[in-house]
């Protein structure tokens, strides 16, 4: 018989966070780029072929890919590590890392709006409006994994 024993409350080990978001960001963005890129390629081909049967599904795939990228960018910005005099301020404990929309009803509304926006945008439109602004938003973070 296995006794149920409450695990002692142990703080997670202190680990340096510099570079972790950058590497993780790369690992997630690369396959996401494949999904977005191939869905856009297939949209182009389906549009040329006049194949409306799959076009709407492909547009949804593409929209979901861009939305996921937007969510990743937003999330990684918010957990960017802060370095003060060579001291790393760690992330909150895992138990505190709830999805942000659980504590912020307006975030859920903005997510719904975002998905509606990308779902109804023509295939040739840039989604979302990213680019130069992203570069500045990551300014100061360590790591340069590509």
């Amino acid at each position, binding site marked *: 018989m296995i006794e149920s024993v409450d695990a002692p409350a142990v703080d997670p080990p202190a680990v340096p966070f510099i570079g972790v978001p950058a590497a993780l960001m790369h690992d997630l963005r690369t396959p996401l780029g494949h999904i*977005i890129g191939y869905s856009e390629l297939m949209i182009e081909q389906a549009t040329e072929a006049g194949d409306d049967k799959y076009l709407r599904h492909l547009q949804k795939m593409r929209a979901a890919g861009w939305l996921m990228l937007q969510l990743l960018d937003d999330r990684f910005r918010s957990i960017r590590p802060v370095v003060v005099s060579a001291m790393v301020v760690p992330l909150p404990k895992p138990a505190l890392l709830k999805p942000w929309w659980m504590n912020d009803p307006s975030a859920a509304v903005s997510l719904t709006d975002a998905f509606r926006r990308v779902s109804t945008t023509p295939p040739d439109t840039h989604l979302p409006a990213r680019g130069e602004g992203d*570069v500045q938003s990551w300014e100061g973070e360590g790591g340069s994994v590509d």
Partner: protein
Amino acid sequence: MPKILLVEDNEMNRDMLSRRLERRGYVLALACDGEEGVGKASSEAPDLILMDMSLPLLDGWEATRRIKAVSSTPVIALTAHAMAGDREKAMEAGCDDYDTKPIELPRLIGKIEALLARAVIPADKQEAS
């Protein structure tokens, strides 16, 4: 049409981006690592180079430095990140522009066309296109 050398080690990125650019009429040459990229920058004589930065054997920064030491072919750096340091590092290596992955194709094509317009394309290539 202008010839673009795509230096990219990720097979899916290479396949997807080259096919999308070829559909728009560009002629593509491909390289899988930095060393091959440096070699093809000479042997293929591209009008422009799209350079991934994280490459095996020779990374994109060093490959760009070697290419720029002997050629003025425009180079656009491609990285999977959007951090300030990436852009500066790419520019210091000699890149002419910078873009992030996932690629927004119309934006990338805008940068390609802007650099091609600045560069002098040999008359024989213009006639052939």
